[in-house]
């Protein structure tokens, strides 16, 4: 029996609207079509009618989960254009917030994956752990979701209580190593659902320009933090986990190991952090010209392009989010998979539909 089954735009397995149309043969998927744009807000266009400082808050709203990386990349691009560099303390604070956000994003994703697997207890375990990192971010920034930490040339809030963060991060590392990793890799029911499912070959990952954990799980060792270190990432010792198998389990593993690395980075940053200036400056105008910036977000490389004609408003801002390049690979993973695997496979790249649509 052949039929087309729609997943989305609104579906329990999707956090946000997008549509996956699966042409099925029995329980097997023959072909998949992706439709995006349900969350299209034309943020790039709106940015052209706002001044550069308003735009920081605007780009914070590109994504609900990785809000900080967007303001960070935007501010880095502006700083490239202005030719300024934030103080060392501000850079360390940015790194700490960025890594905490990576922890948050990965834990949230692990929870979402567990939910899609129908593993309620694991979902609850992940989301309970997520509270720990959210509390840390709330202590630092005063908000659980949109941290508003980045300003041009600095940060908005100082980091005054390193011990709380250190304790929280240690708790997270312990839980990731002691609970999430063993269950995701050893639990028989989870293994049965994840191993060998939704394979993305290395060749395909390269051809489609996949980034972040999706690429690293397919054996493409690329991480902007090491390839072209920004902020103070060249001062930390950390490794980039790479898996060769390219299946859902590999993507889970890459993220879980990355969380441990992030904890290590935060510990090192707290250790090394110098005292001093951290505040940003208030810029009203930009010099004419263009600049780009890119960073390694939880989901992969975020890329910003800014062009200015010398006024207070940017001429054009281009946002390239990691999900935008990762999502087309879902089609390749889905071909030949079973219907039951489809929600898990589409979730395994950690897609962010709002990011993709902007």
């Amino acid at each position, binding site marked *: 029996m052949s039929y087309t089954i729609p997943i989305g735009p609104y579906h329990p397995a999707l956090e946000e609207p997008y549509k996956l149309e699966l042409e099925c043969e029995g329980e097997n998927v023959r072909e998949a079509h992706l439709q995006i744009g349900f969350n299209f807000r034309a943020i790039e266009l709106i940015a052209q009618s706002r001044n550069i400082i308003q735009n920081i808050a605007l780009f914070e709203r590109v994504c609900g989960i990785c809000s900080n990386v967007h303001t960070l990349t935007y501010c880095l691009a502006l700083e490239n254009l202005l030719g300024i560099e934030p103080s060392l303390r501000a850079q360390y604070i940015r790194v700490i917030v960025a890594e905490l956000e990576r922890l948050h994003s990965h834990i949230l994703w692990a929870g979402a994956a567990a939910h899609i697997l129908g593993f309620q207890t694991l979902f609850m375990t992940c989301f309970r752990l997520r509270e720990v990192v959210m509390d840390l971010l709330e202590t630092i920034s005063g908000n659980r979701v949109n941290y508003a930490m980045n300003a041009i040339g600095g940060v908005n809030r100082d980091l005054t209580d390193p011990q709380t963060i250190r304790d929280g991060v240690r708790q997270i590392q312990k839980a990731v190593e002691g609970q999430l990793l063993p269950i995701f890799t050893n639990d028989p029911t989870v293994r049965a659902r994840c191993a060998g499912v939704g394979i993305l070959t290395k060749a395909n990952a390269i*051809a489609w320009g996949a980034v972040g954990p999706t690429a690293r799980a397919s054996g493409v060792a690329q991480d902007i933090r090491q390839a072209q270190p920004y902020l103070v990432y060249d001062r930390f010792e950390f490794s980039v986990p790479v898996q060769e198998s390219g299946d859902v389990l590999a993507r889970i593993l890459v993220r879980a190991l990355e969380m441990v690395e992030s904890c290590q980075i935060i510990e090192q940053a707290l250790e090394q952090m110098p005292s001093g200036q951290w505040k940003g400056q208030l810029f009203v105008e930009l010099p004419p010209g263009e600049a780009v910036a890119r960073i390694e977000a939880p989901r992969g490389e975020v890329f910003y392009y800014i062009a200015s004609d010398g006024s207070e408003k940017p001429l054009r801002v281009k946002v*390239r989010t990691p999900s935008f390049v990762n999502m087309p690979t879902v089609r390749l993973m889905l071909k030949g998979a079973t219907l039951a695997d489809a929600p898990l496979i589409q979730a395994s790249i950690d897609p962010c539909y709002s990011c993709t649509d902007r």
Partner: protein
Amino acid sequence: MNVEEIRQTLGIETPPSQRTDGIWWHIAGLNVCHMAQYLIQNEARLITITAIPDGKSECRLIYHWDCQGQLLHLSTLTQGRKIDSVAAICPAADWIEREIHDLFGVIFNGRETSPLVLRASDPSGLFLANIPLDEEGKE
């Protein structure tokens, strides 16, 4: 990444400008297919393509490449709002080109573009429509 080699292979005369955020190169009549083929052979990754309206009828397209960790930005102008598609050579360009078609109405020669972020009934070129956004952000 060997800048001189790229320059010779693509037959470019203008010199590039080297900045902290990569190498910027504006090339008037760039053969984008040739560029894509050459860079992909050299293990470069297409990050994205940025389109910026240039005058009333044209668009400047910037191809952002990651050449083993280094950024290379090659820009060129469309001709009659048309440019060759690189999607056949570089699958990563597929969605990017579709989005540019949606937002700026650029036509990519040698491929079909179906709407990506817009719905099928919407006209392309949304960002050219000059929608006045007042302070409240309403259309």
